[in-house]
């Protein structure tokens, strides 16, 4: 069953709101706006939606979509509580549902006021996915992802000689792509010197190693492949998907190898299902909450061996016209932090050939990842 879900489903609709800092819309309104755009892009009516996977840590529940869209018969709902890995995990769940005939068109929405809304505090401490670090680490003052993840980055640097300048190369490349995207928050140029001069947040992570806090929504529709070919927009067929959870998933500090993410378990499954190799990947949209997390995923995805990420980053051209085009929309680092749904939307645009200035020439096969909740990793491979 290695290829069980191979091309059983396709992304048939994509939608995004404007990405901002300073939204006057509710979290739910952002999700509805993005969802309506995705539904229209697919050539569907809202009432055609019969499956929905709301963001597990978000404001909206499936009932909100029944109410707002007057859905006559929602047949499938689920949540995928993997933090930033949720969107790609939801694609796996959605393909499973359409492959099994449980639903025809599954809506996967996300939207939040990540800048204007709630910040970190005791509310976060008591969320189940943070309960362990909430009890044992947050009361010491180490509570934000930058602080928690910095231990991984420092360990990687000490064990493998990885350098801050290699993190900086990721940040500057992704910024260049944001500057080509009208719907990106950070347009101004960033040099490696700018990166190195940016203030320290949680050593070794500097400000420009961190993603943006931002407001916005994005959504996709997953449909059964046999329906997809007759729909309004060019489908992106899902060749392979995978989900992986690291050992000691709830706390990084107790993890035997804190430089390995759940991605290392997910990636072989996704590549085997897709039946392709890394050389076949024309474009990669890799979850970039922090620059280090990109470098670590490149290893765990198998683009290079564990410990070689620093050298791989230094020797690879990640520009849209380079060796391995990376985060061609500007990523969470410089476009907006839309929990990685903006990565999914961008991959679909690339495979449709509608990605604008940063369009990768002849992009036929691409990869998108999710990462979150202390180390969960998800991978989807799609083709035009």
């Amino acid at each position, binding site marked *: 069953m290695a290829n069980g879900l191979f091309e059983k489903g396709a992304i048939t609709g994509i939608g995004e709101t404007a990405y901002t800092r300073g939204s006057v819309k509710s979290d739910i309104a952002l999700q509805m706006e993005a969802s309506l755009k995705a539904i229209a892009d697919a050539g569907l009516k809202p009432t055609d939606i019969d499956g929905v996977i709301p963001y597990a840590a978000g404001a909206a529940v499936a009932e909100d979509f029944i109410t707002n869209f007057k859905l006559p018969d929602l047949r499938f709902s689920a949540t995928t509580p993997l933090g930033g890995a949720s969107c790609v995990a939801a694609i796996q769940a959605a393909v499973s549902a359409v492959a099994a005939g449980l639903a025809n068109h599954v809506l996967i929405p996300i939207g939040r006021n990540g800048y204007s809304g709630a910040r970190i505090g005791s509310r976060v401490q008591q969320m189940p996915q943070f309960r362990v670090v909430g009890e044992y680490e947050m009361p010491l003052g180490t509570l934000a992802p930058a602080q928690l993840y910095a231990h991984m980055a420092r360990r990687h640097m000490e064990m493998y000689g990885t350098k801050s300048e290699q993190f900086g190369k990721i940040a500057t490349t992704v910024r260049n792509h944001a500057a080509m995207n009208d719907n990106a928050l950070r347009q101004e140029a960033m040099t490696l010197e700018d990166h190195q001069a940016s203030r320290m947040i949680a050593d070794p992570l500097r400000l420009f190693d961190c993603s943006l806090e931002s407001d916005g929504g994005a959504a996709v529709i997953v449909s059964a492949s046999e329906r997809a070919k007759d729909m309004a927009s060019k489908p992106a067929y899902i060749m392979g998907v995978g989900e992986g959870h690291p050992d000691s998933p709830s706390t990084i500090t*107790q993890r035997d190898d*804190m430089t390995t993410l759940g991605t290392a378990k997910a990636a072989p499954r996704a590549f085997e299902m897709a039946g392709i190799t890394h050389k076949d990947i024309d474009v990669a949209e890799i979850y970039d909450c922090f620059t280090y997390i990109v470098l670590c995923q490149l290893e765990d995805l198998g683009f290079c061996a564990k410990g070689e990420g620093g050298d791989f980053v230094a020797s690879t051209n990640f520009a849209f016209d380079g060796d391995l085009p990376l985060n061609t929309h500007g990523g969470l680092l410089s476009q907006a932090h839309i929990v990685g749904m903006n990565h999914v939307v961008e991959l679909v645009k690339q495979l449709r050939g509608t990605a604008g200035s940063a369009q990768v020439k002849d992009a036929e096969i691409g990869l998108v990842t999710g990462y979150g909740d202390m180390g969960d990793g998800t991978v989807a491979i799609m083709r035009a």
Partner: protein
Amino acid sequence: MEMERLYPLPNPDSQPYWDGLRERRLMLQQCGECGTIRHYPRPVCDHCFSMEVEWVEASRRGTVHSWSESHHPFHPSFKADLPTMFVTVDLEEDVRLVGILRDPEATLRVGLPVEVRFEDAADGAFSIPILVADRSGGS
């Protein structure tokens, strides 16, 4: 406005750990069946799946596994303590612990021997582990 503060949220599985810190003892869970020590506290031994638990006092000795120095005030109640050096330690008992380094002279490196000590937090509402370099010349 009263400043929000993050407190531990002990439950029956973890109360002895927090009680131990207040008494200046580092207490760890040990499986009552197979003797495997585990941390952070939780109900089941992942070696033999027994739910029998004993508590043992740890050596308070270990070596540095990784670290991070925080500079940004993510939460107002910790702002006065910045910059803060958080250190992940491999304890002799083969589990990890996070503590705050209270040793300005120490130069951190992977494998540096450290000793766990204790400090009251939040006006004495609870106690936390802190770390100093172990200069006893052991490992």
